[in-house]
């Protein structure tokens, strides 16, 4: 590929990352036909064409707060698809995984871009009417060096993984959205 080719490829990549936003709620919202949550109406769903992985919600914008729903992940499926241009298979969820391993699975996807990850707390917790777990973490985002904080709730129900994570810059945004993000995640119910 020549120089012009490389620049063109980069330009195409930038333009193709256009996405649509859809306001969520207020009220009960269904996520990927697998769970329902109660939204306060301040969340927007991001639809990225060709974007794999979980369903992404944000209030102030992707750089400032992100709620990600990984729902009904089946045994053998990855949390996020492999990045373009690699034949490497991403780590997959296994129905027999322990919470520590699910944290590691999430960590692998969250650090794919070179960001750091540190588990701050991992404790049992009810989630989606099941016996699950909750963890907290801190990260430094590689792209812009921003220090992030996050929390997540997870549970394996009937062999499928349900994991909802929230992360935001440690300064201001994490505290700003924490109560409503917690309320949204805790309202999750698996659809029968």
């Amino acid at each position, binding site marked *: 590929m020549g120089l012009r080719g490389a620049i063109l490829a980069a330009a195409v990549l930038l333009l193709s990352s256009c996405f649509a936003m859809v306001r969520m709620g207020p009220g009960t919202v269904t996520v990927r036909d697998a769970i329902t949550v109660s939204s306060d109406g301040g969340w927007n769903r991001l639809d990225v064409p060709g974007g794999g992985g979980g369903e992404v919600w944000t209030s102030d914008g992707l750089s400032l707060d992100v709620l990600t729903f990984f729902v009904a992940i089946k045994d053998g499926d990855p949390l996020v698809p492999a990045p373009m241009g690699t034949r490497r298979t991403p780590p997959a969820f296994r129905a027999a995984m322990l919470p520590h391993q699910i944290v590691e699975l999430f960590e*692998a996807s969250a650090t794919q871009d070179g960001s750091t990850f540190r588990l701050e707390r991992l404790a049992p917790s009810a989630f989606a009417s099941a016996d699950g777990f909750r963890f907290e973490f801190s990260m430094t985002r590689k792209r812009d060096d921003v220090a992030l904080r996050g929390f997540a709730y997870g549970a394996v129900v009937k062999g499928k993984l349900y994991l909802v994570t929230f992360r935001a810059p440690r300064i201001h945004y994490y505290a700003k959205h924490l109560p409503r993000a917690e309320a949204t995640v805790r309202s999750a119910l698996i659809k029968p």
Partner: protein
Amino acid sequence: MIAPRRRRIVLGCGCLALGALAPGAAASGAWHPPARFARPDEASEEGGLWGMFDREEARLRRSAFLVRDKALNDYVTGLACRLAGEHCADLRVYLVRTPHFNASMAPNGMMQVWSGLLLRAANEAQLAAVLGHEIGHFLARHSLERLRDVKSRAAFANFLAIFFAAARAGNVGQFAQLGVLASLFAFTREQEREADRIGLELMTRNGYAPGEAGAIWSQLLEEIKGDAVTYEEYASRSVLFATHPPIEERQQMLSDTAREIGRAEATRVGADSYRAALARHRTEFFGDELRRRRYGETLVLLERMRKAAADDGELEFYRGEVFRMRGEKDDLDQALSAYRHAEALRGAPPELFRSEGLVLRQLNQETESRIAFRRYLELKPAAEDAELIRTYLPRD
């Protein structure tokens, strides 16, 4: 006095992992380092390029990914300075927490050394070989031709901007991206050969055993072969960029050139001093290494490190972690055996018992897993996951 000559451009980004040597050719005659270079006029093209690197350096200086520990910085900068001689005053070394094998040198004197390289070098002589190679590009001043080779300089500047953005996004360390960049950034074979030659000169003049320059590439190749997908990527890239011969050839050329230089007094390896300098950071660097999930590569790295430190319980713990995280075939049994071996060695962390407990739990050995979890909580009662671990233990 600083010579008022036009500063030439050295584009060292990503070159280390991709540089190559022409077979059978070796520079002859005594090599003398040039005098210090002057900063180019800001209004010149080169000056503009310097400005871009200066801005990138300003960003890097604030980065959370810089390893700021003074002792380690002094150690690496000290080594670079000894190699660079009077050019030391123009170099600034930055240690960057990125778990890939790379170092780079920008035309303005900004040198980046990635933690993945620091973790992989076996001794001071190997690090000296890599730093010497990068300083070689800097000193050789022949790289202005790279800029001249690029037909559209405005496009080149745009490309640099994209490169920096990619570097910030952390993608530069990936083979695929490096491949595309290499086609634009790579020095020619002749330039690589000269940088290697200068690197060998600098390291041997400082008493370092030149054989270690080839050894670090042999080690890297062994790691690459340890992971099927990495090897496939490496092999296919060699075909794609046929102008850049594979590591095998480079390793051979370095060995040949080392023999030619033949300074009998250059025997210093510095394995102990190197391990001591890295000791405080190894845990953090290994955490990043494990996150890459290149299990085969990491196992080769660990095997090599264990040969030099057979009583190191932390290394044995990491070996167990690789098996546990991979979790294929008999990996859980291998993990368990590594953890149990590590228990008897020095320096194994408390997390060893947590991992042992998790593996035993997966293997449905409940009683034994509880013993391991209890041991973990005894050693680390305020552990971040203590609440969850307690749910695995029966209530008293």
